[in-house]
């Protein structure tokens, strides 16, 4: 299928570009990781150890950039992401395996929830136009959507966690939550995830609401909807068969993109709640100039966005037959 093949080759090409940029960008950042580490300790670290650390972290590499690039690609193909500098000597792949599930769980779940809740409210608000709640929903959505989410996060943290102690201050689990996947563990996980999830859902549902509402309104003015009404079809059937199916398509593109960005996490939300996910570790890695960890997280973000887009492209060809023929691609 030329459409899919084209999309797949494009995916490979963009992945290669991402990997290459990923190699170049950290090397353009001024400073070096040992310097960052020593600066953090402001002299509580003996200077004799600098050279030893350089060797230990593999920063004494004297080979040319081209050689380094080829080694980097070779290692990457074998799944070797190197060792983290700030969490030395933990391998980067081990760090990712520990933290990625938290982000994918928290941000993934919140993104899906925000999409479902927002879209449902969008449909309601378009379908029931004239109703008091339905007419005021877009206002509320605009307000919530334009609120910076880290600000809401700080408010929630200050009032619900610090002042009134309803929720924990930081982290993803209690210090000793019991065995993994036990009842206590799940309780602890949900308890810790509640505020960050609430932040993401509240601030992003508004966007989905507005998109969905506009889509539904524009589809409702189409001739085929008017025709369906004229035929006397029941409302539920018009909504399900004619309106929703067509209104969902534009939202779907956005949803695919949003899913791709889940891996990057909502960096600020994770930082505010000290939630140990990819976003928090990316933030810390940048401060510590921890190149291997930074590269790995960037790579995951890039790969997730590209693959999510590819999947959306695939599903499009199912949802919208015009795409397959190349007419609207």
């Amino acid at each position, binding site marked *: 299928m030329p459409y899919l093949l084209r999309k797949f080759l494009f995916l490979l090409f963009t992945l290669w570009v991402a990997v290459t940029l990923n190699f170049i960008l950290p090397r353009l950042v*001024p*400073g*070096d990781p*040992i*310097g*960052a*580490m*020593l*600066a953090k300790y*402001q*002299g*509580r*670290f003996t*200077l*004799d*150890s600098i050279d*030893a*650390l350089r060797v*230990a972290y593999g920063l004494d590499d004297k080979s040319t950039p081209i050689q380094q690039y080829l080694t980097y690609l070779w290692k990457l193909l074998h799944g070797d992401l190197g060792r*983290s500098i*700030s*969490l*030395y*000597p*933990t391998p980067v792949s*081990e760090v990712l395996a*520990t*933290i990625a599930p938290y982000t994918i769980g928290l941000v993934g779940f919140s993104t899906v929830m925000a999409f479902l809740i927002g879209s449902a409210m969008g449909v309601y608000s378009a379908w029931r136009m004239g109703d008091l709640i339905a007419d005021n929903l877009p206002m509320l959505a605009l307000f919530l959507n334009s609120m910076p989410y880290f600000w809401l996060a700080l408010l929630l943290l200050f009032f619900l966690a*610090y002042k009134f*102690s309803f929720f924990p*201050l*930081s*982290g*993803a*689990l*209690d*210090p*000793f*939550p019991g065995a993994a996947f036990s009842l206590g563990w799940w309780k602890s996980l949900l308890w810790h995830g509640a505020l960050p999830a609430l932040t993401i859902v509240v601030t992003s549902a508004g966007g989905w609401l507005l998109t969905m509402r506009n889509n539904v309104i524009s589809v409702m003015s189409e001739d085929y909807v008017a025709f369906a009404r004229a035929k006397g079809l029941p409302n539920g059937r018009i909504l399900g068969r004619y309106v929703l199916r067509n209104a969902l398509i534009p939202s779907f593109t956005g949803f695919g993109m949003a899913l791709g960005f889940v891996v990057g996490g909502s960096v600020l939300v994770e*930082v505010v709640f*000290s939630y*140990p996910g990819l976003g*928090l570790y990316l933030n*810390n890695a940048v401060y510590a100039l921890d190149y291997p960890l930074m590269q790995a997280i960037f790579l995951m973000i890039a790969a997730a966005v590209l693959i999510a887009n590819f999947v959306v492209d695939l599903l499009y060809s199912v949802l919208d037959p015009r795409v397959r023929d190349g007419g609207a691609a």
Partner: protein
Amino acid sequence: MKRTAVLSTLALLTAALTVTTAQAAEPQHPFTVVRTLQWGSFNLNPFTPNDQHLPPTLSAIYETLFFVNNLNGKVTNVLGTKYRWSKDNLTLTVNTRDGVKWNDGKAFSANDVEFTFNYLKKHNLSSIWSSGLTSVTATNDNTVVFKFKEPNAPIFPFIATQAIVPEHIWSKVQNPTQETNQKAVGTGPFIFDSYSQQALRVLKNPNYWMKDKPYIDAIVWLPTNGNDAALLKMLKAEGDFSYIGLTDPRAQYASKGKNNTYWWPVNSTNFLYFNNAKAPFSDVAFRRAIAQGINTDEAALKAYAGVLKGADVSAVIPAQKKVWFPTTPGDLDLKFDPAAADRALTAAGYKKDSNGRRLGKDGKPLPTFRILVGAGWTDYITLAQVVSDNLEVLGINSTVDQQAFSGYITEFQTGTYDMGVSWSWGTGPSPYYLFYQSFHPNNTAPVGQTSPSNLTRYTNPVVTKALDEFRATSNAAAQKKALATAVTQVMKDLPWLPLTDRSQFGIFNTTRFTNFPSDKNPYYDGNVDDQAGTRLLFLNVKPR
């Protein structure tokens, strides 16, 4: 029939659950340390660098021969019970403790000490051996003898605080730099219990050699993401001890609850370093004159909210001054006096022109000097700003030069800077360590080459001789005399200006525990990092 089966299964399950909970009884008095950083992999190897092993390694699991308090030089016995230098200061004899057991039940003996030091040598793990040590031998089960090529009394704290490991375990470890040592066998007061990214826990060692200590039954470490998160936890009493560099611990922490206290013992000094290899900083009269025009009290107040004070001109920290250098030669004390500084500069040949600009000895205006600080280090930038403002009053122009860490360090070490703010490049249980690192010819290099720790590139035969005399004797009176000579000479020449005190950043929440260190009871220097001294905190804190 079916019903009975279900019931009996239920009963069995309940029994099993009860047993599990009984066995995994939570410690009654866990002491909680809140960290401002995450930790890395599960590594309890005491031979790996400090940020690679987990925090309990040196502070709770392994023990040293002695503990030497960096504040006042006081020596506490640990696995060693007595030490003495021979008359010629070439032999150090240490007696080790009887009746100590490793936490796997085997007995500790002087052979483990011999093994540890020779293991360091074999795998090149420590700089102790490059300082003239020639052999370490256990002469019987509780005596170890250290022999030296030439006298080196100041090496003692390094030998004293080396973590001792069991021979029966480590003799099998071929590659100590890659060992993660997850089943750590030590003599210390705690045994490792659990590792996760959320928490670390150690439990009390039931066979510990001190019968009455520790008073706590567990220590828990919690990681956070930086100062703000750690401070919130401490304010909510979710932690008992933390180490946070706050700008104003009184306003940000202590004033917010009756159980919130902090102890910031002064353990070193922030200096304004002069590049003595460059004119006009090569001129003693110039250095002394501008030093008199800099208000160190104002600098301390602006940079540290008055929690830390202006530094003593001798650069000897208060706790050590009492022990080593109780009286400063009065005529060398600097009093902030811009008018006198102005007169002194003119007298030394640095006149002012009609615009109030200071001229060099050659009659040309002095250039604009750079004051080197680390980029974004707010306290240092504030200090440099005060210095710059004070110099302007004297007609001398300067700019605050912020550089990223590698540039900052390189300029200091290669001697290309004019003036710069930095910490004490050398600390220890007596002022000797600071003066040796800062001014001994062993630690300097020509301009352009990297100097290990002599940033000012100032050396003086009087100081060198005094430091060598100190090193060659273990006699306290002789050491005091030598040190006084060195300190007095440096005060005369003023190659640096001690600006403000520097301190540790310990904060406590005393809701659950008492007996924290304080000015009245400074049993260790207040560090929270994985160090031998922190063990004393864990031994001394008591549940309320």
